[in-house]
């Protein structure tokens, strides 16, 4: 069926360059630009609640994209992503508080520091594959979590640490309305960078490692290099997302970066679609809005027989956790290619509307 992008009639590619542009068609490029323009105007119309959701989708989406580069494109499993996300958050706050580096410089620097940490854990990854790797990253998750609780000089220990708001030319981005633009800029830049990476030699090498690492190695792709690189890249994105998170909340506590959060990241890319750039964003949106949906359902059901039988109001925290697990399982069983695939099918349906064959 229509799984690849549908190219309009007469739009022939005559060179490899034109076949690997960032946007496959002119229309898709225009729509992407339109989307960004609409988002630019969004703070004028939306209230704080929705802006908050969008900002969350933004910084989590950046981190999820990093995980998708590692899991979806390179085929390496990581169950420790939230630890890297947290490391980025602490690193940015620490750079700012301890060394007085301005926040706008802290965010990329924190991402680089996280990359270094990711590379350290990526070294065993270069030798491992499949489930051994999954277990190694699980260990990384617990070791980093322990480090957060232990390293008072870095994270403030159990008390947590304060992160200053982002300031640029004397203007502080400390409200939802202004910070929205910061996240938007970072998100657009990081997503374009990732798309660019995937149409370059290195990106194709990553995909080759995923599809058949033996063949990839025979073709001259350095497995160790690319596996470590994928780990570094994913940590870079996670650190970036974490830093944005820190300066948005202006407070980082050591408790947040648990294995459940890591699993949520994995859920995002599975729901969105493994190996799909825009899928990462869709999956993140889904995962961020899921608790709201649960809240809505609970409110809608309150007072009914189901509510009285199950005592939903008290159970809502557990229901959210369960929903994450159930959604992951349902997507894996019924829609393993994620929302991105479904979106393509919807597009294909409308393009081919009256004659779908």
């Amino acid at each position, binding site marked *: 069926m229509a799984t690849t992008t549908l190219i309009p009639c007469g739009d022939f590619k005559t060179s490899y360059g034109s076949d690997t542009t960032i946007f496959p068609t002119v229309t898709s490029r225009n729509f992407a630009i339109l989307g960004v323009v609409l988002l630019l105007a969004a703070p004028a119309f939306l209230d704080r609640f929705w802006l908050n959701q969008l900002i969350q989708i933004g910084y989590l989406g950046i981190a999820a994209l990093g995980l998708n580069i590692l*899991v979806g494109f390179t*085929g390496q*499993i990581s*169950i420790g992503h939230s630890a890297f996300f947290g490391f980025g958050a602490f690193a940015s706050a620490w750079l700012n508080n301890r060394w007085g580096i301005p926040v706008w410089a802290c965010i990329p620097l924190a991402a680089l520091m996280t990359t270094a940490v990711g590379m350290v854990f990526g*070294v*065993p990854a270069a*030798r*491992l594959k*499949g*489930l*051994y790797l*999954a*277990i*190694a990253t*699980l*260990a*990384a998750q*617990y*070791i980093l979590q*322990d480090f957060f*609780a*232990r390293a008072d000089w870095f994270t403030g220990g159990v008390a947590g640490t304060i992160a200053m708001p982002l300031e640029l030319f004397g203007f502080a981005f400390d409200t939802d309305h202004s910070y929205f633009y910061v996240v938007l800029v970072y998100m657009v830049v990081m997503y374009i960078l990732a798309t660019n990476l995937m149409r370059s030699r290195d990106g194709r090498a990553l995909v080759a490692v995923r599809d058949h690492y*033996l063949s990839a*190695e*025979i073709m001259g792709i350095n497995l160790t290099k690319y596996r470590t690189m994928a780990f570094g890249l994913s940590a870079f994105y996670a650190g970036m997302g974490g830093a944005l998170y820190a300066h948005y909340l202006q407070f980082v506590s050591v408790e947040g970066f648990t294995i*459940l959060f890591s*699993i949520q990241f*994995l*859920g995002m890319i*599975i729901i969105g679609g*493994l190996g799909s750039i825009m899928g990462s964003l869709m999956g993140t949106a889904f995962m961020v809005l899921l608790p709201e949906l649960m809240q809505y359902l609970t409110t809608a059901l309150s007072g009914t027989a189901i509510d009285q039988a199950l005592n939903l109001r008290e*159970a809502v925290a*557990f*229901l959210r*956790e*369960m929903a*994450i*697990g*159930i959604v*992951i*399982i349902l997507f*894996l*069983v019924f829609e*393993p290619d994620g929302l991105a695939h479904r979106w393509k099918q919807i597009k294909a349906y409308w393009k081919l509307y009256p004659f779908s064959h």
Partner: protein
Amino acid sequence: MQLLLQLLINGLIVGALYGVVAMSFVLIYKASRIVNFAQGEFLLIGAWTCWWLLTSWQLPFWIGFPITLVFMLVFGVILQVVVLRPMIGEPIISVIMVTIGLSIVFQALMKWMFGVFAKPFPPIFASPTMNVFGLEVQTVYVVSLVISLLIMAGFGWFFKYSRMGLAMRATAWDQQVAQSLGISVRQMFAMSWAISAMVSAVAGVTVGVVNGVSSALSFFGIKVFPAVILGGLDSVIGAVLGGLIVGLLENLAHYVDSQWLNWGNMYEIAPFYVLIAILMVKPYGLFGTKDIERV
């Protein structure tokens, strides 16, 4: 010295329990090549079921416990048939994620049904502690050590002599050949999950009797990974040894920490450092099958 000895005995006993859980983990892995991240939840579910039977229904232990085991047997089969069977042939990440999803669901479900606080088991043994070589040891721990050894011996017998155990080994060796010899591979998969769930529940109940039942039990499922990696993912003997080593090691780390280092939390975290080190040096563990894959 007294403390060290006490800790070593604790380590041996907890290590034996790790060994039992690791063994049931390896059982699933060997039979169906599925890494079960929900192993800890088996302990949790088993312990809560037994607790519920003993407190709400006021059943004596010797009735409640077998009912728990039967329940876990059925639960394992249902889980495999409903959730895991459709995943046969899917890529490894999907299967891993399904078990991770299951683990979240069960953990939240158990918290929802039984609350977040640890609840003590009704007393089962007449005297809570007993004297072993001049050391105070909880009776349950001694019994649990005996149970662990019994389970291990049972596993040994099962795989060596029983018809089903042999069929299971054949399935683990080569599914196609096993199928052509008339072994129902599907049945073996389901049975491996059932036995694994049941044996984990035994461990869960034992820990629950000692420490009370709470969601902390599911951390056993995470601690299993250092043990199985140490022993090699597909070796039953390796799992037992790995469990013992991890149990001793975390208590030793705790001792070293409490005597000299004072870093805190070494008990929890030391196995993971060991895990990383082993993966760097000897990724297939002490007894695991070496997968040679260099070009």
